[in-house]
């Protein structure tokens, strides 16, 4: 049942607080606006017609994915470089990475759908798409390393170092893919999220999308990070309980002789 401390029934709090309620509500409103503008009010594009509406979810997803990755990188650096080595940074990095994977996956799927409509193919090896796919896999690796076990600080150090190496790789992959694709003269094949002519209303819808998704991201990250605090706390309690048991055992054995 609910974890009631001796002394009476007190309600236990979950990961929600006023802050998350505010962000959650704003995010929900933003998403509703996005649907209204993206699907109804904004005009069809001259060249891409209705398929341009996918842009209003695809671009904001991509933005959040990169934002999430950036937060993971910065939080990882802060964990490593600050002498306090506070696990709060580690948990923020982990939470942001998980959400980043979600948004990156969604970016890739919508990119494929948009590409199928606009250019007839699900995938093109254009630099941006390839880099996104690369980041997606790198993030997956990062999350897998976080689950390798060991102490919380071991997990934090390993994944933080991995995140830093990831930051090192990104420009390398970016430039090699760019150099590679430039050989194939991709400039003539317009890229999927490359600048359809945006009129005012379209720009506004895109803007709404970016705001809404950023709010969503913040809301999700706060919840996920707190959930990680809970997971770690349970781990600690498990350890404490095991130690208590062990000492009790030892005491019994000692007393029994």
């Amino acid at each position, binding site marked *: 049942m609910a974890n009631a401390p001796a002394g009476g029934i007190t309600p236990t709090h979950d990961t929600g607080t006023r802050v998350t309620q505010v962000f959650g509500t704003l995010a929900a409103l933003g998403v509703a606006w996005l649907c209204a503008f993206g699907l109804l009010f904004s005009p069809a594009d001259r060249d891409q017609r209705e398929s341009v509406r996918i842009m209003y979810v695809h671009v904001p997803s991509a933005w959040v994915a990169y934002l999430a990755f950036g937060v993971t990188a910065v939080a990882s650096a802060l964990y490593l470089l600050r002498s306090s080595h506070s696990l709060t940074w580690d948990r923020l990095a982990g939470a942001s990475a998980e959400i980043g994977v979600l948004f990156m996956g969604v970016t890739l799927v919508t990119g494929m759908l948009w590409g199928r409509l606009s250019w007839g193919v699900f995938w093109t090896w254009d630099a941006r798409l390839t880099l996104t796919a690369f980041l997606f896999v790198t993030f997956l*690796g990062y999350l*897998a390393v976080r689950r*390798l*076990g060991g102490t919380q600080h071991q997990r934090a150090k390993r994944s933080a170092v*991995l995140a830093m*190496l990831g930051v*090192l*790789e990104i420009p390398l992959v970016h*430039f*090699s893919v760019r150099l590679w694709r430039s050989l194939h003269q991709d400039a003539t094949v317009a890229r999927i999220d490359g600048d359809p002519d945006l009129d005012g209303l379209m720009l506004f819808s895109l803007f709404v999308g970016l705001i809404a998704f950023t709010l969503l991201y913040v809301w999700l990250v706060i919840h996920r990070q707190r959930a990680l605090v809970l997971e770690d706390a349970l781990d600690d309690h498990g350890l404490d309980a095991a130690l208590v048991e062990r000492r009790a055992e030892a005491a019994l054995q000692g007393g029994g002789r």
Partner: protein
Amino acid sequence: MAERIRWIRWQRTRAIAAKDLRVELRGRVLLNQVIPFSVLVLVLFGFAVDDDGIAQRVAPGLIWMATLFSLLVMVQRTFAVEAADGALDSLRVAGVDPTVIFWGKAMALAVQLAVLEIVLFAAAIILFAPTLRVSGVALLTATWIVSTAGLALVGTLYGGLTAGIQGRETLLPLLVFPVVAPVLIGATRAVESGLGTTGAAVSEGWPWIGLLTVFGAAFAAGGTLAFGPLIDD
């Protein structure tokens, strides 16, 4: 004083590299298992592609793919050797600097990789008959050196992370393959330019050598910094 310390560290690095190479010479795993495996990969690619013209054009890519698969095997082996007797921990307890271990193992891995790549290149020439040209030899040699360095550094670094504990080894491909993507792209394009398989001129290969060098330098630095924290569990 600093001079002496540097010399000692260099001696230790060489000792570790020599130790790894001696283990290989005694066990002949590279010779008897990894090289045949890699050539087999090339042969299987030949079956899969089933078109002489296409196979000839993609031969450079196939060489590097086979190299990458073999890299995984070699990295796992080089750390399995340590894990068996807890040798890595013993070295650390004895006060050996992790960067010394990193560079020692990376050097040994590089030597073995270099041998592997020569064999694969020769096998590809035989199997897929791309034409060799004298003008491309310098480029091919440069590619060989720089790519090997980059792959050895990345392999040693991530190998250290995934070594030992069961359930970790399967993580190695997932971590390493995205990271070495630039090497695959760059080395393949450079070899294509060296051989002229896609009509590429030799001059088009040199920018890739630049990229590969930057890659190597980045992971020389990154590996030196990161290897210690990663293995100090």
